[in-house]
């Protein structure tokens, strides 16, 4: 028994099965990320005046990651186009670049995550707030690379132009002085929560897409000899998914880094 239209195109719809499938799947993905973006909007407009953070993320790293993903999108199209032109060698080359870009993106993202997890806000018993990156932990205290503020609100607007970043210095704090201490992980603020959830889910999509592309690049490529058309279709489908993942990032970047 054979399922019709796995490779050949059905005349009245102009599509093969998998192409219908992937577009439907992407429609549901739009709803998934759409719901999370809507939640972002609701949480942001619901936040008290002055307590929604600006400038907590490093813009140039985000820009770099945007460029990395756009590059990977271009190489994905080129990989598919190479197969359409029966050039298997350049397919291998282009998708190798795609995979490198994926790994590069994930590395930069992990660095950014790490940066948030070592970033701490420490409330002292005298009411001052120390904010900065944890340099080291000793038996009786911690060392932060950061600065002091008196009003917590000062921490929320780091993106104001002309003021510049507050001056950072090494601060030593004894354990006995600490009232509360929390790192900039998901539990720190709803902004961090939605940031980690959105980018984490996106990163899972990057990993998933990269695994599929790697499979097609390495093991699945033997189908090129038996059924080149079907193989090209598979590359197209995985490429559509990859473009979607890029597109999500194109929305994530301004929403989380710039606004």
């Amino acid at each position: 028994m054979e399922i019709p239209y796995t490779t050949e195109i059905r005349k009245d719809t102009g599509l093969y099965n998998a192409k219908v499938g992937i577009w439907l799947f992407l429609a549901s993905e739009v709803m998934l990320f759409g719901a999370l973006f809507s939640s972002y909007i609701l949480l942001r407009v619901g936040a008290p005046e002055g307590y929604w953070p600006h400038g907590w993320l490093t813009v140039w790293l985000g820009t770099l990651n945007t460029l990395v993903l756009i590059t990977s999108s271009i190489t994905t199209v080129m990989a598919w186009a190479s197969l359409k032109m029966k050039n298997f060698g350049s397919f291998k080359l282009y998708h190798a670049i795609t995979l490198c870009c994926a790994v590069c993106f994930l590395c930069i993202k992990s660095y950014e995550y790490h940066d948030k997890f070592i970033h701490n806000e420490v409330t002292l018993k005298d009411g001052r707030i120390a904010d900065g990156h944890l340099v080291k932990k000793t038996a009786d205290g911690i060392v932060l690379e950061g600065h002091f503020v008196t009003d917590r609100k000062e921490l929320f607007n780091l993106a104001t132009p002309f003021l510049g970043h507050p001056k950072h210095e090494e601060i030593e704090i004894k354990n006995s002085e600490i009232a509360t201490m929390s790192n900039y992980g998901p539990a720190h603020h709803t902004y961090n929560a939605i940031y980690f959830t959105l980018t984490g889910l996106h990163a899972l999509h990057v990993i998933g897409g990269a695994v599929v592309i790697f499979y097609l690049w390495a093991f699945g490529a033997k189908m090129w000899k038996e059924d080149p058309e079907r193989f090209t279709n598979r590359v197209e489908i995985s490429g559509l998914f990859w473009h979607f993942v890029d597109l999500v990032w194109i929305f994530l970047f301004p929403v989380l880094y710039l606004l």
Partner: protein
Amino acid sequence: MQTAHAIPHTGVHEEHHEDAGFWRTYIFSTDHKVIGIQYGVTSLAFLLLGFCLMLMMRWQIAHPSERVPLVGGLLEKVLGASQGKMDPQLYNSFGAMHGTIMVFLAIVPLAFAAFGNYVVPLMIGAPDMAFPRVNMASYQSYVIGGVIMLVSFFIPGGAAQAGWTSYSPLATSIATNGQTFWLIGMVFLITSSLLGAVNFIATIIQLRAPGMTWMRMPFFVWSQFVTAFLLLLAFPPLEAAGIMQLMDKVAHTSFFLPTGLAVSTLQNISGGGSPLLWQHLFWFLGHPEVYVLILPAMGIVAEVIANNTRKPIWGYKSLVYSAMTIGFLSFIVWAHHMYMTGMGIRIATFFQTTTMIISIPSVIILTCMFLSLWGGSIRFNTPMLFVMAFLPMFGIGGLTGLPLGFNFSDLHLHDTYYVIAHFHYVVAPGTIFALFAGIYYWYPKMTGRMMSEFWGQVHFWLSLICMNLIFQPMFAQGMAGMIRRMSDGGANYTAAHNSQLGMDVIGGLSPTLMHLHVWILYAAVCLGLAQIPFIINFFWSIKHGKPAGSDNPWHATTLEWQTPTPPPHGNFAKPPVVYRGPYEYSVPGHATDFTPQNQPDNA
């Protein structure tokens, strides 16, 4: 596919090309019919489990804090219920899991996945689903989700307790990991229906047989098509909400937890979250889900009615357009579940208006079904009886929903037993009756044997009577102000009514209304007993039922009856070509009173 015991080709009935072995044939099958039956049997088992949970709860409501008979010892041993009594925590988790199991593990898989899988490819003349392996993955994901839900009963603290709606912050702050299990289970169930929905839509778009144009598709296929779109687009927001609640539970974020939340003491959280956000995201799925429950049932009803009135279904095009309209509108009515949240008059007005508009296509569908009966020479077999009961029962369920759709009357009825009666009329004697009709109707195609007509009728009449005895009194209880989800059925309030104040207080319930609990319990037990003939009939008839006699025992027109029985792998002996619409019954001048879709004009 490893072995090579080729069976000689003696005819179309032996079209198995190779013996695939037990595991490949029955457990890891990619055949849509086997997957359909897997879904069917699994979801029927969950249906029974969900009913048993409710039976125990009804005992607790009727006889608060008395040892549960028969299973009290079991509850004590397995779930740690002290002295076999149901404490409020256990009641709450049974309540939450009853809803979850019935909606996500029983009815949707049965209506959509089981019937859809088995019947849709046959009806459109396809050899299988578009993505058979995705189909298998869908079932496996469903089973994993189900197992996670079941396991959560046995963890310390028990299963989720915050109702099937899992409202935060309640769901987040109850000290059990049941909610975490619930959320992870839901992710698997959502994945399962996502895979199913993609597969169904792709199959219906791509694999229709030559000549099977859109307006020649049986209404059942249309209803599954619209349902698949609802699942595809409405479930992901719940998945997003589930991920966020999981983050609240596991990573201690505050998506749904407001600033200053205190659960006995002030919680150590960042705050800033919105409980209303969860409700919006939940009901964005929750309301389309109602139509996921009802549309496939309407599809089954249309097939059975056309077949047993021996005439075309009345207003086929109106049915199709109404189903599409329902599908679209169901995405913009969700907040009528949230009138009590204080989200604002303007928003409530908007959703009240859309809610009233969506009742129009629903009424059109029901009216078409009723009109189809007019002037037909009706055959009163078991499937038809269930369908005939579906019409008024669903009518009651639908019409009693109108007062809930209006903002002002909902303020009184919200969260009372009236709501329970309303949606159970839609789903229990509504959808479930249609599903029973579907089982009796397609059983001969699946097995080659008929289910017993006599026991089918016993099953039908007892179920019909008991269903009404259970749910009709709840309207009265609810209108008098009996609130749902009380583990003692409102006994506390009754005490206030009788002794302390000596006058009518809101929520104080009269002894007559309270005593109805006992009658509802009896009716529920009888409903359980009424399912025994069905269960025996279902299994007994596989081997010992009356042989169907032909591939088309009901003399039906649609394509699933034009295959060998049971259909072999690949379905059709030769690829079908479709020449006509789905309901050409009693065509004047024709030799038989039915003309199959694949019969050429000159034949």
